[in-house]
């Protein structure tokens, strides 16, 4: 997650000090990704070093320094809005890794893993939905964050249904054979498809 760009974007609204930035960030994202003040000040320090923010004046009576965007900082924010969020790096997905290992190792009850996960994800999805029901419709930003989590859970349940349907069509032996073939012929995409046949 880009804390750097989030802070720069918030400073478009006007100068703010660290605690204010943290509060604004959490308020707009419903506290879904909590920041600690230390992280905020460390990031502000780097942004100042890189010439993207500067202090907006002397410290107030409580010793807090407000920061504002420099011209370079302003163009960095514009750039952030313009460029899509990168998908070049695949974040490590523990569930995908767990199931990839489960279908290739003997003696693992894959169906059980799938069902246990589906129940847990469905419980989480229900709880998120309950939270959404309690939202009064006045906080669009917060509801959109909540809905992004809801859609992610939904996608996971759909994927688990898909996994279950796939493993129902193949035997563990076939999955193992597929893995062996893949190791034996690196660079060929074919064996990956064999699993579904």
């Amino acid at each position, binding site marked *: 997650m880009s804390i750097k760009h989030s802070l720069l974007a918030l400073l478009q609204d006007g100068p703010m000090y660290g605690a204010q930035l943290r509060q604004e960030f959490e308020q707009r994202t419903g506290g*879904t990704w909590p920041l600690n003040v230390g992280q905020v000040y460390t990031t502000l320090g780097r942004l100042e070093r890189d010439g993207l923010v500067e202090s907006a004046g002397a410290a107030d009576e409580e010793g807090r320094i407000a920061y504002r965007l420099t011209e370079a900082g302003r163009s960095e924010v514009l750039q952030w809005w313009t460029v899509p969020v990168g998908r070049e790096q695949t974040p490590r997905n523990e569930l995908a890794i767990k199931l990839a290992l489960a279908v290739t190792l003997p003696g693992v009850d894959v169906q059980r893993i799938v*069902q246990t996960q589906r129940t847990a994800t469905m419980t*989480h*999805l229900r709880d998120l939905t309950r939270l959404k029901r309690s939202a009064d419709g006045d906080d669009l930003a917060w509801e959109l964050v909540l809905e992004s989590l809801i859609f992610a*859970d*939904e996608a996971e349940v759909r994927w688990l249904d898909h996994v279950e349907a796939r493993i129902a069509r193949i035997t563990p032996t076939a999955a193992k054979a597929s893995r062996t073939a893949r190791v034996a012929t690196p660079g060929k995409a074919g064996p990956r498809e064999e699993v579904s046949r």
Partner: protein
Amino acid sequence: MSAEPTLALRDVERTHGTGETAVHALRGVSLTVGPGELVAVMGPSGSGKSTLLNVAGGLDAPTAGTVTIEGVDLASLSRPGLDRLRRRTMGFVFQDLNLIPSLTAIENVSLPMELDGVSLRKARAAARDALGRVGILELADRFPEHLSGGQQQRTAIARALVGERRLVLADEPTGALDSTTGEAVLRTLRDQCDDGAAGLLVTHESRHAAWADRVIFLRDGVIVDTTGDATPPESLLGQAG
């Protein structure tokens, strides 16, 4: 929830055919749905979801086990008695809405009560109330063809819950609707349960099942799992990294 569940299935079996060709559509299914509770049933095609709904609604009889509605064992009722219980206590919502095209929304909703011998005036007043509860009272005099998909589905929910009915059984009620309209229908169903109705919802959409209090997973006629207790919001969020 009161002590008496609105719907209770105990050790329900439903087998089609006999001997080697027998198909066990439901095997030892037990579940209860109380007033104010919405329970969703999920499972792949052929897992027994629709059979479960039909057995719960008395449209199909279990091979073994009992189904009770507000403490009344459906097997103890005569055919007319069962019909009466269905008309007065429970309502059905299907993907295929079965609205009668030549009747207006309010006539569709009041029809089950009229068939039950309730006076036209009383039936229409109840229908008006039911349409109001699902938020489409102003559309009462429209024919189904002049209602959107979502409005038709709400009419079907109003019909399912008109009068004193306290149990709604819904089979893929959002099937043909876009996601926003589908969600509005779920919200309507949820509101009806929050007002005291009991609901059993069959769906393959996890986002819709998530409106229920509990989700039951069915596989090959067996309940294999149920969602857990609610997580408090403070532990629900703030973990996403």
